[in-house]
């Protein structure tokens, strides 16, 4: 509750000053972004907290009947923001299945464009899970985000949007996020026996499941 109530900028406010430092293998790039408040700094300085900063676009609170309605219903678990004209809801993990179902049933967000996640290893709740929704009748796009901790699971939305099936499998494959109630949660792009989830930030770009490669391909290394 406390975290979400703060106007979140994607890379979370507290703790991690520098996500770039987290990148394991981006050798050449690490140097320059290591100093975040350098020349193109205006946006970076906007990061810490304040919603109102004149330089650079920042997420602004977003009000609409929709938001008001759900805020009344669910209280402060919902945070509605808009950034560069794109609206998104920051929703508490506990409200996820209800909000998403209501969005489809009542607000006609009948098309789940994409489900994905972002990894912030420094944060306590490491993962942002993002649902990108679209409403054909309203011709409107909406993102719903929530934060979960590593190892925590999240309800599957396959029963709401069947298209979530593969999308959730991909998120599971790449981030290791468990989706409860998914009919067939298994890896989709990587081989079944693979170890590790490549899109986590602690997974290096050259890293691979050596054991799997040796057993299944009969070669020393895939590099």
């Amino acid at each position, binding site marked *: 509750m406390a975290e979400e109530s703060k106007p979140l900028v994607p890379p979370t406010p507290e703790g991690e000053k520098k996500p770039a430092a987290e990148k394991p293998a981006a050798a050449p790039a690490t140097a320059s972004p290591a100093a*975040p408040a350098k020349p193109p700094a205006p946006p970076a300085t906007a990061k810490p907290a304040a919603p109102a900063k004149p330089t650079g*676009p920042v997420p602004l609170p977003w009000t609409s009947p929709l938001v008001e309605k759900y805020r009344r219903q669910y209280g402060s678990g919902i945070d509605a923001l808009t950034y560069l004209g794109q609206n998104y809801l920051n929703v508490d993990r506990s409200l996820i299945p209800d909000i998403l179902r209501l969005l489809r049933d009542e607000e006609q967000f009948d098309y789940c464009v994409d489900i994905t996640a972002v990894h912030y290893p420094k944060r306590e709740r490491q993962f942002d899970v993002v649902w990108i929704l679209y409403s054909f009748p309203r011709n409107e*796009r909406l993102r719903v985000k929530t934060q979960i901790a590593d190892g925590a699971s999240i309800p599957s939305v396959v029963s709401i949007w069947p298209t979530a*099936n593969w999308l959730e499998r991909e998120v599971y494959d790449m981030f290791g996020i468990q989706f409860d109630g998914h009919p067939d949660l298994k890896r989709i*792009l990587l081989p079944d026996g693979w170890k590790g989830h490549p899109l986590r930030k602690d997974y290096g770009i050259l890293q691979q499941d050596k054991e799997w490669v040796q057993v299944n391909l009969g070669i020393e290394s895939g590099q």
Partner: protein
Amino acid sequence: MKDSMDELSNGAVSHLDLETPEKPYLDANELIINMGPQHPATHGVLRVILKLDGEKVLGTECVIGYLHRGVEKIAENRTYTMFNPYVDRMDYVAAVSNGLGYCEAVEKLLNVEAPPRAQYIRVVLTELNRIASHQLWLGTHALDIGAMTPLFYTFRDREEILKIFERYCGARLTTHAFRIGGCQYETYAGFEKDVKNFLAFFPPKIDEYEALLTSNRIWLERTKNVGVISGKDCIALGVTGPVLRASGVKWDLRKAQPYAAYSKFDFEIPVGENGDTYDRYMVRMIEMRQSLRIIEQAVNGIPEGPIMGKVPKVIKPPVGEIYHSIEAPKGELGYFIVSDGSTQPYRVRVRPPSFVNLQALDIMVRGMLVADVVAVIGTLDIVLGEVDR
């Protein structure tokens, strides 16, 4: 038969119990067949596990990932500019569209806009590429259904488009035509003439394709009522692009949420009625003609002016995230980019149309025959480079 959302949501999609008990073939009435990953009709390295009763398909399961290259991971380790060529390698038959989507997404994140001239050039090239993509689809799809000849006709005509690309940016397939903020290259001297030549050259060729197929009895029998999917199911499954439109949903991102200069052009969105393979064929054929219309308007109206917007040398978007999607030849191609303020994207998520559309294969082919699986894979127009990324 597959109209109900409930059936869909009960995990009907691609959830196949492959453990068949030790039963004789006739009694179990089931036969598991592996189609692919090396199979002439799966358009790459797609593996479809078919569960058959005789020739009837009881269910399918797609096994993908044979072409997985970790594009999203690569993005996190490249600068915004360095990543640009990588997107060409996803849907390699529509590389220009991929580049357009990516560039526009980053531009949005930077809050800059490409100058009008660049936008017109982008539209011309993207629509040319849409035609090229549809041509490739038509050729391979017809080949899957057994008509060999259209393949060669479409490849002959696609060559003209590739020549324009080559003259414009030096590459034919993975063009890397656009840059963040505009276009890298000014149009070459004969660009407009070439495009106009193509505009005159191509319509008779479409007629030629249609003469071979559109009213061909066998073609009708093979495509009508094959792989039917309702608009409702399409939306539930997130299917976009010509497949969605063939099912009767008049939705095209170029109209719904215009990007580039599309709002300035006059064109129609073809819509099908039955959502079968034939409608998808017709929709794409009409789309080719409509693309010609757009190109005509765009190439006649290319304004003068710069081709690059005001973009800093080092691209460092402010902290934030953006989702931007365009209408690629295969459907909605989206980029979800998270920036942490550094020169490298913190996260790039590609929403690939082929990947999502492929999910619909299962419900489209249930109860159909093996030959229809081939037709439906063709009609979905998937590119495995994009499915697996």
